[in-house]
């Protein structure tokens, strides 16, 4: 492949994400299977009521790491295209934090590649989440 980022669309966005935009980026006549993951803000975490979340990113490195994951998924699972969009800023309950869209000739690699991307994103992409509750706030995953 000439351009190593061919068919890869990575975005870090301060405004609402669109499933349709991600879907339209990956759809292709050669592909029979599209798989999507959308991560939304839950009203409960570990039994506590959440009022909203704040996402902070080290933006240039977050985009680099997201691109590495998208390219690895495309290459390792033989996907046609990958869209990976992540929000920053304050998000209300029910809002969308991340959307992943992948396309492939058959469905099995689409499911596997899509799940690989969200699993890796949670391990390596420098994005942090501050959870706000009625009685205060804390950064998730920071302390044991």
């Amino acid at each position, binding site marked *: 492949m000439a351009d190593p980022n061919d068919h890869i669309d990575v975005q870090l966005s301060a405004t609402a994400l669109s499933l349709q935009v991600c879907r339209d980026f990956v759809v292709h006549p050669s592909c029979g299977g599209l798989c999507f993951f959308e991560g939304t803000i839950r009203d409960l975490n570990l039994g506590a009521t959440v009022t909203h979340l704040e996402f902070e990113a*080290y933006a240039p490195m977050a985009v680099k790491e997201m691109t590495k994951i998208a390219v690895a998924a495309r290459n390792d699972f033989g996907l046609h295209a990958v869209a990976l969009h992540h929000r920053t800023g304050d998000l209300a309950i029910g809002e969308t*934090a991340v959307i992943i869209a992948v396309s492939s000739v058959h469905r099995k690699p689409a499911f596997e590649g899509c799940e690989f991307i969200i699993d890796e994103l949670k391990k390596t*992409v*420098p994005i942090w989440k501050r959870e706000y509750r009625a009685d205060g706030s804390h950064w998730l995953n920071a302390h*044991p």
Partner: protein
Amino acid sequence: MMKIQCFGVARDIAGGPYLTLDQLEGRSVAELRQALLRTYPAFGELVSFAIARNEEYASDEERIEAGDQLVIIPPVAGG
């Protein structure tokens, strides 16, 4: 003196978006980590933290050079 950028809980520990450390040039990333833990013991209470050097995860053996962009990466929580 080098500026080290802080995000998430690291910003709370540093008391702002940057902290500064002396005499880092030529030292390893492992030595940077030790210096951080001496000056800000609260980093020792985190699950873990990584150092990014010029927008890439840095290994403990890498040497820090003048002009490097250094960032403390506390445990990430995207998605």
